[in-house]
């Protein structure tokens, strides 16, 4: 069987090679890594336009094919589940690298040893990683971002902009229709705003919500207080609660001047400012009492990757000074390595977005229940 398949793939390889030959002789010699991403356009563009050419230049024998899984089934998790099935049946997973994947969200994946351990031994640049990102040794923290408040400085003087969540609630009520956040299940900018309301209503203590302590009754009690707070601003939001379906539609409302203030991802807001999608008058701020949530985006590599060596090289390349600087410059993210390991001039330039702390909120049960509850208790105009 195996022989036959090899022969077939050889024939296929020769056929593909023959088709590619006139275009590029070199391309046929490269091993093709299968990279999956479910990131937003900023991330997928970054991989296609910046990472790919730089990677091919650095490794003449390697390249990668980027497959976008955004919005399809359960995105990268679905591909990881297929990879797990391939591990169990010892077949080719046709996957080498997940641009972003939380290994814990693949049921049974960690137990089955689906993911390759990533340490400075096989990914040398991991030695520079930000200690805040260390948690699980099968994840590669290659970029980070945080949700913050973006507002139009032309309409709101900097000294009048809300610096705490309570200030924001007061501002929203005083300026009906001028603030909006996105639906929490459709993007992190809306989700982490809802999470911040949950934190606000429960003593601003993010440590209350951990991956291992979800209990429906306890969650319900904590959520109720957040719903009261969010219902309070609901009638004063844009269009009496016309919550947009994602990070980008929310940014668009600010860009069109339909609202003056939104919650947004730091990287998306910075990139929109850079490309002038957002007017230059837009300013960014982080709450001083407790920051909005953020975190690192983790890549993962299946232990049964078709080209494990190549995938590890890509991982190390992503953590290199060159690519980490590109993460900051190109997509407005913050680096997965410590700021100290990058150029001091860069650090000075971005001092406003370098976070002091990065609160997090567990995905899985907590997030699912929070998103589901928001639809029933906040978004709907049904009588309560």
């Amino acid at each position, binding site marked *: 069987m195996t022989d036959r398949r090899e022969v077939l793939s050889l024939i296929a390889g020769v056929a593909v090679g023959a088709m590619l030959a006139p275009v590029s002789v070199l391309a046929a010699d490269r091993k093709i890594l299968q990279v999956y991403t479910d990131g937003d356009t900023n991330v997928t563009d970054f991989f296609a336009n910046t990472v790919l050419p730089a990677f091919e230049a650095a490794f003449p024998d390697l390249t990668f094919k980027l497959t976008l899984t955004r919005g399809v089934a359960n995105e990268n998790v679905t591909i990881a589940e297929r990879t797990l099935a391939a591990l169990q049946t010892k077949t080719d997973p046709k996957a080498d690298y997940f641009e972003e994947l939380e290994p814990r969200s693949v049921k049974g994946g960690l137990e089955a040893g689906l993911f390759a351990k990533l340490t400075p031994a096989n990914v040398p640049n991991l030695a520079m990683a930000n200690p805040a990102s260390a948690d699980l040794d099968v994840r590669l923290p290659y970029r980070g971002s945080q949700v913050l408040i973006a507002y139009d400085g032309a309409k709101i003087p900097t000294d009048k902009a809300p610096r705490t969540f309570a200030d924001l609630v007061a501002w929203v009520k005083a300026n009906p229709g001028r603030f909006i956040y996105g639906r929490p299940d459709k993007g992190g900018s809306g989700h982490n705003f809802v999470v911040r309301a949950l934190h606000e209503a429960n003593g601003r203590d993010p440590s209350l919500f951990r991956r291992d302590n979800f209990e429906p009754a306890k969650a319900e009690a904590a959520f109720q207080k957040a719903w009261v707070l969010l219902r309070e601003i609901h009638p004063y939001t844009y269009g009496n609660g016309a919550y*947009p379906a994602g990070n980008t539609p929310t940014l668009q409302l600010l860009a069109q*001047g*339909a609202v003056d203030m939104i919650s947004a991802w730091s990287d998306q807001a910075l990139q929109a400012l850079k490309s002038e999608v957002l007017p230059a008058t837009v300013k960014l701020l982080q709450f001083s009492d407790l920051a909005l949530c953020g975190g690192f985006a983790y890549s993962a590599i299946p232990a049964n990757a078709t080209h494990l060596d190549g995938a590890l090289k890509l991982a190390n390349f992503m953590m290199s000074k060159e690519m980490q600087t590109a993460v900051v410059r190109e997509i407005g993210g913050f680096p997965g390595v410590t700021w100290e390991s990058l150029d001091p001039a860069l650090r000075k330039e971005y001092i406003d977005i370098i976070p002091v702390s990065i609160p997090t909120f567990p995905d899985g049960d907590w997030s699912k229940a929070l998103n589901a509850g928001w639809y029933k208790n906040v*978004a709907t105009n*049904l009588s309560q």
Partner: protein
Amino acid sequence: VAVAPLIVGPLALLVVFALIPIGLTLVETLTSETGAFPSVSRYAAFFADGYSRANLLYTIVQTLVSTLTVLTASLIIALQLRFGRGRVSAVIQGLALFPLFVPGIIVAYALIRFLGPNGSLQILLEHVGLTGWFRSPYLTPTGPFLGFVWENLPLPVLILTAGLAQVSGHGVEAARDLGAGIGRILVEIILPQVQRSLLIAFSLTFLSIFGAYTVPYLLGPAAPEMMGVFMQRTYSNLGEPVAAEVQAVLSFLICAVVAAFYVHALTQEQGATEASG
């Protein structure tokens, strides 16, 4: 008779990829959380939840209002095409069929840019002095309504134009000679003859709008949700595939009623053709 062996292929596809999955889904939704079968507990849970009921009701109302608007508009256009003359009709026909070639997602984004807050329409209105009263339909039920009307216009226009082609000009002229007004001609001469076409156009438009996803997802409010959007969220964000299946079966049942009209209209037509042939 010669076609009979060939039908095996499509039939097998239908059985394997449609009928068997539908059967499995039905069994799953009729199995309770504790494994009892048959049990309607999952359906009871759907109807016990006010939010789910509101979504179902909203979907039905949104679909009916949009469908009837589409039918009215396309009937007017089809009448113009049938009885109108000259270049105007040709232009109208082109415009009416144009949406057929535009993908739904493009329509949605175009409408966001055009009808959205501070979009083209609002700017135009403000330029002619109409300020203050414009409220963008984006992210309200009016958003998907406009999207549906735009997107679903061509097919009923084609169906009704074909139906009206069979209405004889003599009958209309005779009625006009006897002094009947436009309204009377429409109700008593034309509509009875295009009843079947209307029923077919109604069914197809209803089915297409009821199951829509892109337009209500991009243009509609966060809540209430249309069933397509609700199902997708229940399935992938909430991770409750069986609850999503219950929503799918309920949507399917409503669509089946409308589909029955369609089948009825089709068989009626065939019967009529055979009788006259």
